[in-house]
């Protein structure tokens, strides 16, 4: 997940303040909720739109969130809009979730398989990651089912990737035949 400098700055400010005020869990819940809400394309475009004036955005924001979210979260949203950075909300949200995970020592991993995996396997993968990575208290596994990998699995966490998929092996095989040194290229 790509995180920008700007997103990091905003996310850090609310993280620090929330920890100070002891409302981190609530703020996290709100922001995670916002991430889900953002999958609504209209809301997403509403934030992005340069045509809607900030004052209008603020009043819509008030209707949408006031009273429903933590006070800190609400004022955070307000600041973002006042600074005219509402178009960057998705990045800020992503950055916050990442920083929250680092703070809580939660490691997220993505497992891609061709067929659904059972809980036993998930537990095993969690075990492997915990063993490989120091300083992890919890592992969250996101499971993606993708038939195009044909078989096997791809495990990705942080910057690490284990590609045990059939499709990956076939691509590697194909790549080793891409270069034909018997063809003149000049």
């Amino acid at each position, binding site marked *: 997940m*790509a995180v920008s400098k700007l997103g990091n700055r905003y996310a850090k400010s609310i993280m620090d303040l929330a920890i100070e005020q002891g409302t981190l869990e609530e703020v996290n819940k709100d922001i995670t909720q916002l991430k889900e809400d953002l999958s609504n394309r209209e809301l997403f475009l509403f934030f992005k739109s340069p045509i809607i004036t900030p004052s209008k955005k603020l009043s819509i924001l008030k209707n949408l969130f006031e009273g429903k979210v933590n006070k800190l979260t609400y004022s955070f949203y307000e600041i973002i809009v006042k600074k005219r950075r509402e178009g960057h909300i998705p990045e800020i949200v992503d950055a916050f979730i990442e920083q929250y995970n680092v703070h809580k020592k939660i490691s997220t991993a993505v497992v891609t398989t061709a067929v659904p995996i059972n809980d036993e396997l998930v537990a095993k993968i969690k075990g492997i990651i915990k063993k490989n990575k120091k300083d992890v208290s919890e592992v969250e596994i996101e499971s993606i089912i993708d038939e195009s990998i044909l078989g096997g699995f791809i495990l990705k966490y942080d910057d690490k*990737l284990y590609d045990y998929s059939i499709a*990956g092996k076939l691509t590697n095989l194909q790549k080793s035949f891409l270069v034909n*040194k018997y063809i*003149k290229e*000049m």
Partner: protein
Amino acid sequence: MVEVRAEEISAILREQLSNFKSASELEEVGTVLQVGDGIARIYGLTNAQAGELVEFETGVRAIVLNLEEDNVGVVLMGSSKGIKEGSTVKRTNQIASIPVGEGLVGRVVDTLGKPIDGKGPVTGKTYELPLERKAPGVIYRQPVTEPLQTGIKAIDAMIPIGRGQRELIIGDRQIGKTAIAVDTIINQKEFFDKGEPVYCIYVAVGQKSSTVAGVAKAFEDAGAMNYTVIVNASASDPAPMQFYAPFAGAAIGEFFRDTGRPALIVYDDLSKQAVAYREVSLLLKRPPGREAYPGDVFYLHSRLLERAAKIIESDEIAAQMNDLPDALKPMVKGGGSLTALPIIETQASDVSAYIPTNVISITDGQIFLDANLFNSGVRPAIDVGISVSRVGGSAQIKSMKKVAGTLKLDQAQYRELEAFSKFGSDLDAATKYTLDKGARNVEILKQKQYSPYTVEDQIAIIYLGTQGLLRDVPLNKVKEFEGTFLTYMKEKHQNILDTLKAGKLTDEVKDTLAKVGKEVARQYTS
């Protein structure tokens, strides 16, 4: 395309299949944020090192050049086709390097060492040598003493080049810069035949593929491919391939240098390399400086040319050389050398542009080619007045030094008088003598392309010129006289030529040269 036999194909396939590893390993990956103009910005790759090779899903490789706070800037060494935002990039844990070995000789390769001449994989053992390597330190070097014969009379006599030297060839387009370099490589055949080859590397940067094909053919026709490697990054290759090509060439040269053998490398040309580097730098948003070149363009050339060196004779000291790649360590020998002939193209003879002044100050001298001389038929069009070799004098054989010692001054004097003589017709005898001699020496120094002279032939003919023995030969007959004289010498007085080659200039040699010269001159006197 070479005709490929059926069993050959299946053999290759089987080999490739048997090498194929099906086990996966842990990969460190990143995600493409942005790609375009031959560069990509990657999120992730937190452990990537500067200069490391990374690989995209499409198999295209890239070199890490910028490590920033939140992203990594890489330059693509191939097409960006198929790479999009969100694509995965993986580390290779390998600093940009090139596989070098004896099997490379006679081949044409690209910047990453992939053969592009269609003759199949490089045979024999290869060693991974890094493209970027620090030049040997002071204690591992020794002064330049042996000559590197170019086979070009004007250069070997007046601007001698020594093994381990860096001599710049500079001039406008289309006046024979490449020709000098190519002739020099062809002239090394003499040493190859003798069993003491000078390995040659010709690095073509940003040139038309047709030009490179022409050069390759010239080498092949002259039998020079037996000791030559061509590194080609043509104008159609991505800019990073172009600016790394000289470094790849230098890595190949260092292989020969550090195993105790003499090597010669031609960078054709460094102005195009600087342009390619400027392109990449601007795209990576590095601040532009003079002529929009980045601030470190001087360092780009100085670190490259500093790798040309004459290595100390002692094997023990040479073995402790700094920054030796592990692969090379067991085979290091002293006494090797890497001579560099960088080429710079000027615009309208402007040597005070940024890149020319930089490279002039880095190298140990320059051969300046002049468009006016070229057009007036003096070929090679070397301007003797401003061409120098800062270390070459000690790298001339004794006989040549004695014979050609005054030639450079004489010619400078001649050029000055020539300008004056255009005004009046009444000249005193001394002036006339200088003019006559100078004009004949100019004729002597003219030379056809692809026809290098052995050092003894050069000394013999230059001796006649400097002694004024051609006085009676008409100007337009000098070339003809030269041919006859040298044939005669070879037939009747081979021993004299051998003495000259051995570096001796005895009275007997002088007398014979004068005698034969006068005899042959008589045939041409009208």
